[in-house]
């Protein structure tokens, strides 16, 4: 029975990796840019969710608007996704686009992304202080127990959300016109504008999609682990990036599979071996996968991605 509990835990944590990995993969697929600020956009998403929730519910010395938790959740989710995507678009407009206009090499844009991430972290530290925030309870927690297996309603929501997001993105990218344009840019960034497709609009749309997923991940993460701190995005961001690479960066299925794979490996290692060895074992396994398939599970060497 312990086995099923571990599977549930792995599904939950894998969902977070998958949701964040999707943002890396979308931006990489279109721009060939590794957006290292993405983990911190996720952190910003969690903080935005916190402020929206506190504004609605009250707490931390604020009276709030006094709405019921259910309504608050219904407002917080879309509000957080919209506000977080604004942050992502702002980064694109103020940092990546000027460099792209000047024809800077991708390497410089990647370094800019790293700096953007550090700015978000330390900006948050300067603005809000080092003290942690305790996320208010938006959802009444229900624990279902089947034999020895316990699952909370939140866990189910997290896993369902990851799968729904995957299906949605897969549909957008493969079935819609804008998705076709995204694939087109990934294929040839110079020919696409000649066909009358607005390059910048498509890129902005990509950032909106990726960042709103980070926002969604942020709110779900804050609900599951209700303690927020400025550096919370760094480690999970890196790990999600690794998940995206192992899945084959640029491929949406790769991000989902990579995310769940990392979740299962991490939890599985702890379940079988002493927990001290977790990261060592987990990343050795991932290294082994990359060794066998350097482009990742779904990756194809430098051809059309996304």
């Amino acid at each position: 029975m312990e086995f099923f509990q571990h599977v549930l835990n792995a599904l939950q944590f894998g969902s977070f990796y998958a949701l964040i990995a999707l943002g890396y993969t979308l931006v990489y697929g279109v721009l060939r840019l590794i957006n290292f600020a993405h983990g911190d956009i996720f952190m910003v998403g969690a903080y935005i969710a916190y402020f929206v929730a506190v504004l609605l519910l009250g707490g931390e010395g604020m009276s709030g608007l006094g709405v019921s938790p259910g309504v608050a959740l219904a407002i917080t989710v879309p509000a957080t996704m919209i506000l977080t995507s604004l942050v992502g678009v702002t980064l694109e407009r103020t940092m990546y686009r000027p460099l792209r206009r000047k024809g800077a090499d991708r390497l410089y844009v990647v370094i800019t992304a790293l700096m953007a991430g550090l700015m978000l972290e330390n900006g948050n530290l300067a603005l809000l202080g080092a003290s942690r925030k305790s996320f208010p309870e938006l959802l009444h927690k229900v624990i279902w127990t089947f034999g020895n297996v316990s699952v909370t309603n939140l866990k189910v929501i997290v896993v369902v959300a990851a799968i729904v997001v995957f299906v949605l993105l897969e549909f957008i990218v493969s079935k819609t016109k804008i998705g076709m344009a995204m694939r087109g840019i990934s294929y040839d960034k110079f020919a696409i504008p000649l066909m009358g497709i607005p390059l910048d609009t498509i890129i902005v749309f990509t950032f909106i999609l990726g960042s709103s997923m980070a926002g969604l991940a942020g709110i779900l993460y804050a609900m599951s682990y209700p303690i927020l701190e400025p550096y919370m995005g760094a480690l999970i961001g890196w790990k999600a990036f690794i998940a995206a690479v192992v899945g084959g960066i640029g491929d949406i299925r790769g991000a989902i599979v990579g995310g769940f794979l990392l979740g299962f490996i991490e939890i599985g290692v702890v379940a079988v071996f002493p927990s001290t060895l977790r990261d060592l074992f987990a990343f050795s396994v991932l290294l082994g996968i990359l060794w066998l398939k350097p482009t990742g599970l779904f990756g194809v060497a430098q051809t059309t991605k996304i």
Partner: protein
Amino acid sequence: MKAMTIKVLVAVLALALGAFALMGCGTDSNVIKIGFNLELTGDIPKVGEASKFAAEMLKEDINSKGGLDVGGKKYKLEFVYQDNEAKADSAVNAALKLITQDNVVAIIGPNSSKQAIPAGGACNDNQTPMVSPWSTNPDTTKDRPWVFRAAFLDPFQGPVAANFAAKQFGAKTAAVLFDIANDYSKGLAEIFKVEWEKKSGAGTVVAFESHGTKDQDFSAQLTKIVAAKPDFIFVPDNYNQVALIIKQAHDLGYKGPFMGSDAWGSAELMTLCGKDCIGQFFSTHYAAAGAQGATKEFIDRYTTKYKYVPDDVAALTWDATRLVLQAVQEAGKVEKDIKAERKIVRDALANIKEFAGITGTMKFHGTGDPDKCAVVVQISPEGKFEFKESVCPQ
């Protein structure tokens, strides 16, 4: 364009050099400088904040009376605060900066053993007295004549926790969850394990699991622990992780008790943990609820000034700083040369045999480690840390 770039570079360099030059100035013969190496940002910011608040209160007390009386002359106190970001390497840098640039007489902190062990090495090598208020790991002061502390040690705390849990919960088996990257947590977990198995027989620690400092998901470790069916879980972790661990254990259906250690005792524990922590026990340095005498006076003044009840770190910083100031006074004079001054302060510190602190009486036996009592507290439904039992060294 090129010339412009060079001009900008030169300007930046000049500014930086100017800033360095300024730092060196400002030594005043009527001032005694004490350095504080604190966790102001990073994982445990509330710890650093509490330390700083307590120190500020003490400084205002003394400076408002004209300063510290050393050999008939009054000296104003100046406290220099350095942030060590709750990281081991930053703690060493902060210590070196206090020693070489700020020219402090002595250093208070770091608090957590993770930072105090490496910083203690730096202070000892540079012959500067250091007093850690909160560090309980033996390695902080071991073979370091220049390093002292105001807290009890883990080899004492581990058995206190083990004995209390055995008695209170009637427990036969225990599980341990600790932070592998934190010297304090790891050391205490190992001491506890040895002590528990000595008491209850081999194999009675049914699960011994670890996690990393930045981890927020403990579900895999806790699933293993819950499946092992321990009578209680010992969690020698920092308060921020404790909040997540207890919540997740409850999500996984665990209903038994937890036993904690002194790193739980932050004023922020209850804001983060909420109702999940109510009723749990932990060993600590003092109990704020129901304190008497000087301790109560400190608590009342701190609460009025900063609007929350001081945690053990605040009280221990108060004691540690007073310990250093007493040593400065007992040295009888203030040497002009900072190295000589540090030497006489260290000797005076080593000569203190007994010190009546607000966290209890400390007895020193020629090492930097005091003998003092520990208390076990229970978290009340109002979120107060209520006195349960006091355990003193034999």
